């Protein structure tokens, strides 16, 4: 087996100790936890900045200007730098130009794309037949039909619940209440997935602590 180098062992120990300090918050807030929290924010910001420098500033700005003489790259660079004028009250108005540029491009790009992807396609996806006959077996047809009916009633009842121009009373009120039940099912599913996600993060750390740090555990698959 290849022996891990000093820096690998060192980095594993640092990561393990930082993990334990982060989890110490679960027992009680303490200065060591707050240090690790601040360290995480600082390192994340520095890491992001270094990547932007390596993957964007050097290949997309410095090299084209310096090596190829592509001076057109100075235009977006200057527009970007104007964003920083917000830090000086006297010239902060200059930041409105890049902001206007960014908002204009963003709105122009996203409005038609969002209508197509999130509204028209989703409405189209709801236009299904309540009776399905094209499946292989009668059982599959029945399951698909029930699924489509639930989908149609679910969408309509939830939309009715969010229609506030008519009082939620009588038969219409009961239909709106059905919409609440559909919403509750949806919230329950989201909550279940959230629990799964949080436990997964804990599992990730436990796997690291047991296998990479302590080298213990029966299920050694790595």
């Amino acid at each position, binding site marked *: 087996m290849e022996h891990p180098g000093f820096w690998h062992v060192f980095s594993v120990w640092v990561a393990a100790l930082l993990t334990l300090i982060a989890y110490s918050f679960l027992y009680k807030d303490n200065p060591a936890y707050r240090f690790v929290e601040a360290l995480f924010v600082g390192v994340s910001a520095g890491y992001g900045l270094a990547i932007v420098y*390596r993957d964007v500033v050097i290949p997309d700005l410095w090299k084209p200007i310096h090596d190829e003489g592509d001076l057109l790259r100075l235009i977006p660079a200057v527009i970007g730098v104007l964003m920083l004028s917000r830090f000086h009250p006297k010239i902060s108005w200059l930041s409105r130009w890049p902001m206007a540029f960014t908002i204009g491009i963003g709105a122009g790009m*996203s409005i038609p794309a969002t209508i197509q992807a999130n509204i028209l396609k989703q409405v189209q996806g709801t236009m299904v037949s309540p009776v399905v006959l094209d499946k292989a077996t009668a059982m599959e047809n029945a399951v698909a039909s029930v699924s489509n009916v639930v989908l149609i009633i679910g969408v309509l009842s939830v939309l009715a619940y969010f229609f506030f121009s008519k009082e939620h009373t009588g038969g219409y009120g009961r239909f709106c209440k059905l919409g609440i039940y559909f919403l509750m099912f949806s919230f329950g599913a989201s909550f279940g997935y*959230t629990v799964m996600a949080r436990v997964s993060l804990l599992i990730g750390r436990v796997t690291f602590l047991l296998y990479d740090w302590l080298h213990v555990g029966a299920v050694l698959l790595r």
Partner: protein
Amino acid sequence: MSHTPDAASGNRDFWVRLQRIDRRWIFLVLFVGVVVPYFTPLGCRVRPSDPTRKLYDFIDKLPERKPVMISFDYGPGSAAELDPMAVAIARHCFKKNLRLIGVTLDPTGALLIRKAFEKAGKDLGKKMHEDWVSLGYKPGGGVVVLGIGGGLDTVFATDSEGKPYGEIPALEGVRNYDDIGIVVDLASSAAPDIWIRYAREAFKANLACGVTGVMVAAYYPYLQTGQFIGILGGLKGAAEYEQLTEAPGDGQIGMDSQSVAHLIVIALVILGNVASIASRRGPRG
């Protein structure tokens, strides 16, 4: 059976105390529940779900050397859930002799590309630049995704190592989405929305996603409309994909612990509700 008023009051006090239990006991029980299966595996089986199987089947049918693009739109904070997916998908692609292209819309995801591809391709002898390439990070989100549709080389003139686009064998013949078999977005943010809007709707790119458990419920509607070919949800999605590829990895390691933790949470939810109801019953003083 009847209770005296004192006994009923004592019972109610018990349920009230139970609701005020120090939450650190719950953390401890959950921690023990997660750790124990590492030493005594329970062998919980993972049954691949339809959304996972659809993605697997699609990739499985791609012809040899067809490029697959994976977008690593997450940082180290979500790596516990999404790294196992990246490795499982990459391993499947390498076994099928497909080429892999890694990109990211999140600067903190840039270094995760190489780590995942190296881990997946190590045993199969896959090499950087020949079988896979990391194009790294570009800012702009939607602008980048739209730009790839116009020409991948116009957005990424070099890879993250500085090698020019035209000198990378893994990118030979790859102009835009037309030449890419499928784009798989692994995300812990709203990045899948960007890929749907600008890659799927604008260029009809084949698209799938793997997202954190918190987000997965929000993306199921896109599966039904066919905008996504498949979806992997959280660590379970990774475990399902590993099961399909018959290559156990970090996803399956955690499934026993995940099951035990879920049973504990379900028991606590039931206990909490019973305590809430019981503490409101009986004579009031």
